[in-house]
């Protein structure tokens, strides 16, 4: 097409040379810069078409203005400063541009059809020629070419159209490339900006005048935006955050200018409170609207940290004062402990001492006592040697006996040193604390203890000896007791055997006597019967002795059986009276039985009471030559005691014999003189039986004045 046009141009007498056109095409294609292209084209028109003065304006779509690009034959500065608002539709150049047709403007002086606009070409008629690219580029005119001397336009139409079209196409192409490039750069810059925004961890956002979010980094989005997948809880949190944020924003907005304040939001994910410092800066969005850039700095941790620091500080102060108090207390304790306490450093230097340690290891200021000084040094040497042992050793505790001397008196003090190492963190020895226990007292105590122990042992030994002796004696006694017991048992057995052996022949004597008295062996004469009576009575006497002996044996061996039964004393008296009737009759004495009527029944061994009573009665009858015998029963109510007395008017018993009368075989010589015989056992047995029954036997008598034997018994006894 270009070729065809060149052909057309060649046909015209004013047409430039085809080679010139080719050079322009090459020049334009080789030039990438819009203004330079335009300059080249205008220069070419001046050279080849006689257009000496011209101006080129191009559309700036971004600014929506028509701007001067370059000129030929006029002030370039002014040309480039020219600018027409495209929205001003009445501007002649705008009209010309939109018409896409060449328009001729007359000079001002002619002032006819159209008033010419003011241009750097000055007040001259000119032709405004729109630059329209080919149909291939769908845009409208990309610029206007103003050429002075419109009269020459007819002859130049073809050339102008060709150059216009060529330039328009080229400019459009360049503009497109430039536009593309710009957009690319802008996109890149936006990405960078985005990257920068995202790189900032603090939420950053830009809001418009109504507080709507225009730009936000992900930190801000996290807090203030939701999408379709957001859960209900998070949605509510975000809504709350938006409310809080807006409120804060508008509070800030009212203050105007950059500001910062605290803002409490909620983490939509975990619901934790987040404390932000909100910094806002007003930002003009355009002429009428002011937006706001907000930066939120998360100070939650900072706030916590601050609180913690404050708390730590407070604790530190508390700990400090506690330590101070502790140290004071420790000082007091150290001074009050009576044991010397020392703290040494790893080199063995004493770094701390309580007053008691000072007494041993330091010489008081002003003391001139050489001896004391020497002792202190000796103490120090002993202790230093001990301390170095501790550092050499591995164990943390150390115990040793040391002997120090009292600096004042020089007296040796046995000490037990107990040390403990204090370790620092990495296991380095830092100090050794040593406590010295004065063992003097303990040693003295041990000595005393030893002494006491020795004495105690001696004493024990003596006690042991004594105990042994006692045991020996006991054993001897035990044996003797056993022997006695054995002898006693032997005696009892012997008496029992004697009784048996005596009874057997006595049985024959008594039996045959009785048999003869009964007349089994024939009738007896009176003298025979009388002599046989003597045999019988002596046999009976012998039997009584044997029986008494046996009773005594029973009593002595504790084998006398007791059978308690209830009876009335009056009945017993009747029975005794009956049994003793022959004796009473033979004695020819007056015998009276008297018992109190109100005496209640007794509980005792009736048989034994009867035996005692018979014995007393027979004795009384035996030893009373004439006079009377009285048997009296009485009841001593207050003591519930019964007494049975047998009183006679007989020979009586001398004071001397009264003492032995109750002893076995204690019959007095008096009895023999009276021609009477007794067993010698009767009273002894009676008294013992009385004792067995819980009572006693007493005697009141005077020689020649009769005797009164009284049996005392508890009214009731129980079988044991």
């Amino acid at each position, binding site marked *: 097409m270009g070729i065809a046009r060149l052909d057309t141009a060649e046909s015209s007498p004013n047409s430039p040379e085809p080679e010139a056109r080719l050079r322009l095409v090459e020049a334009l294609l080789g030039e990438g810069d819009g203004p330079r292209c335009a300059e080249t084209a205008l220069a070419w028109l001046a050279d080849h078409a006689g257009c000496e003065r011209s101006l080129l304006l191009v559309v700036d779509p971004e600014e929506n203005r028509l701007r001067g690009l370059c000129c030929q034959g006029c002030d370039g500065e002014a040309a480039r400063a020219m600018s027409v608002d495209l929205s001003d539709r009445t501007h002649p150049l705008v009209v010309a541009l939109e018409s896409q047709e060449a328009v001729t403007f007359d000079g001002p002086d002619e002032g006819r059809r159209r008033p010419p606009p003011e241009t750097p070409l000055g007040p001259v008629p000119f032709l405004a020629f729109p630059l329209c690219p080919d149909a291939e580029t769908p845009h409208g005119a990309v610029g206007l070419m103003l050429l002075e001397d419109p009269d020459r336009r007819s002859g130049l139409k073809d050339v102008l159209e060709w150059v216009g079209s060529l330039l328009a196409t080229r400019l459009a192409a360049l503009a497109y490339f430039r536009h593309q490039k710009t957009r690319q750069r802008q996109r890149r810059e936006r990405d960078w900006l985005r990257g920068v925004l995202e790189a900032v961890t603090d939420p950053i956002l830009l809001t418009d005048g109504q507080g709507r979010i225009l730009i936000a980094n992900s930190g801000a989005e996290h807090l203030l935006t939701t999408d379709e997948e957001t859960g209900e809880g998070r949605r509510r949190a975000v809504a709350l955050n938006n409310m809080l944020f807006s409120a804060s924003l508008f509070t800030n907005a009212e203050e105007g200018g950059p500001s910062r304040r605290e803002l409490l939001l909620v983490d939509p994910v975990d619901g934790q409170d987040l404390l932000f410092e909100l910094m806002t800066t007003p930002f003009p969005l355009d002429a009428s609207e002011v937006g706001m850039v907000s930066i939120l700095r998360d100070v939650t941790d900072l706030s916590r940290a601050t609180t913690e620091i404050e708390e730590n500080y407070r604790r530190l102060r508390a700990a400090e004062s506690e330590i101070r108090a502790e140290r004071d207390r420790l000082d007091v304790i150290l001074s009050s402990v009576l044991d010397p306490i020392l703290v040494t450093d790893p080199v063995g230097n004493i770094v701390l001492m309580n007053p008691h340690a000072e007494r041993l290891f330091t010489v008081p200021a002003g003391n001139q006592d050489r001896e004391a000084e020497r002792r202190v040094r000796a103490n120090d040497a002993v202790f230093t040697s001990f301390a170095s042992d501790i550092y050499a050793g591995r164990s943390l505790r150390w115990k040793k006996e040391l002997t120090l001397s009292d600096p004042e008196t020089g007296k040796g003090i046995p000490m037990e040193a107990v040390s403990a190492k204090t370790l620092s963190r990495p296991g380095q020895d830092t100090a050794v604390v040593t406590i010295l226990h004065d063992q003097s007292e303990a040693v003295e105590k041990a000595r005393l203890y030893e002494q006491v122990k020795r004495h105690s042992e001696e004493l024990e030994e003596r006690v042991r000896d004594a105990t042994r002796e006692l045991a020996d004696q006991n054993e001897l006694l035990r044996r003797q007791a056993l022997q006695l017991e054995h002898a006693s048992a032997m005696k009892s057995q012997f008496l*029992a055997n004697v*009784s*048996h*052996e005596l*009874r*057997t*022949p*006595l*049985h*024959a*004597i*008594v*039996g*045959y006597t*009785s*048999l003869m008295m*009964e*007349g*089994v062996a024939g009738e007896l004469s009176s003298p025979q019967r009388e002599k046989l009576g003597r045999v019988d009575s002596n*046999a009976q006497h012998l*039997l009584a002795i*044997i*029986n008494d002996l*046996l009773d005594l044996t*029973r009593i002595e061996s504790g*084998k006398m*059986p007791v059978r308690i039964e209830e009876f009335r004393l009056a009945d017993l008296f009747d029975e005794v009276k009956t049994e003793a009737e022959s004796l009473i009759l033979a004695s020819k004495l007056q015998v009276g039985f008297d018992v109190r009527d109100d005496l209640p029944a007794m509980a005792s061994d009736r048989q034994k009471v009867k035996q005692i009573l018979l014995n007393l009665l027979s004795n009384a009858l035996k030893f009373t030559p004439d006079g009377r015998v009285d048997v009296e029963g009485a009841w001593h109510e207050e003591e519930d005691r019964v007494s049975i007395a047998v009183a006679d008017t007989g020979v009586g018993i001398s004071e001397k014999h009264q003492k032995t009368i109750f002893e076995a075989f204690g019959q007095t010589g008096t009895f023999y003189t009276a021609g009477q015989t007794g067993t010698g056992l009767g009273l002894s047995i009676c008294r013992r039986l009385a004792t067995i029954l819980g009572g006693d036997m007493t005697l009141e008598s005077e020689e020649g004045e009769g005797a009164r034997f009284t049996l005392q018994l508890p009214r009731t006894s129980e079988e044991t």
Partner: protein
Amino acid sequence: MSQKPKVLVVDDFAAGRELSAEYLTYRGYEVATAEDGAQAIERAGEFLPDAILMDLSLPEVDGWEATRRLRADDRTKDIKIIALTAHALETEKERALDAGCDEVVTKPVVPKDLEEVVRRQLGLDRAPGDRAGSGEGS
């Protein structure tokens, strides 16, 4: 009187044995005697007395043992056994009762009293030799 009551007198002491035997015979009893426990058991088996007067201290088999054996034998177990002993201690009496004696009589005892014990043990009104209404002896 169809048959005389039979009494076996056991005693190693001849005077005592003969005294009892003579008197009981005199009072109308049929009497047999034995001198020791073994003999007593043998005689009791043959003679089958109604009562036995048993001395306790006997050679060989003593009175306590003899009593136990008699009590163990069906033929002799119902015989009245009266211990007649010179032992006077209660313990000896109790031993005799424990061995199976019906009554214990301590020596010395007059024959007349002894016969009363026998009579009482046999449940008799009077001695077999007595006639109703007449006096003692025959």
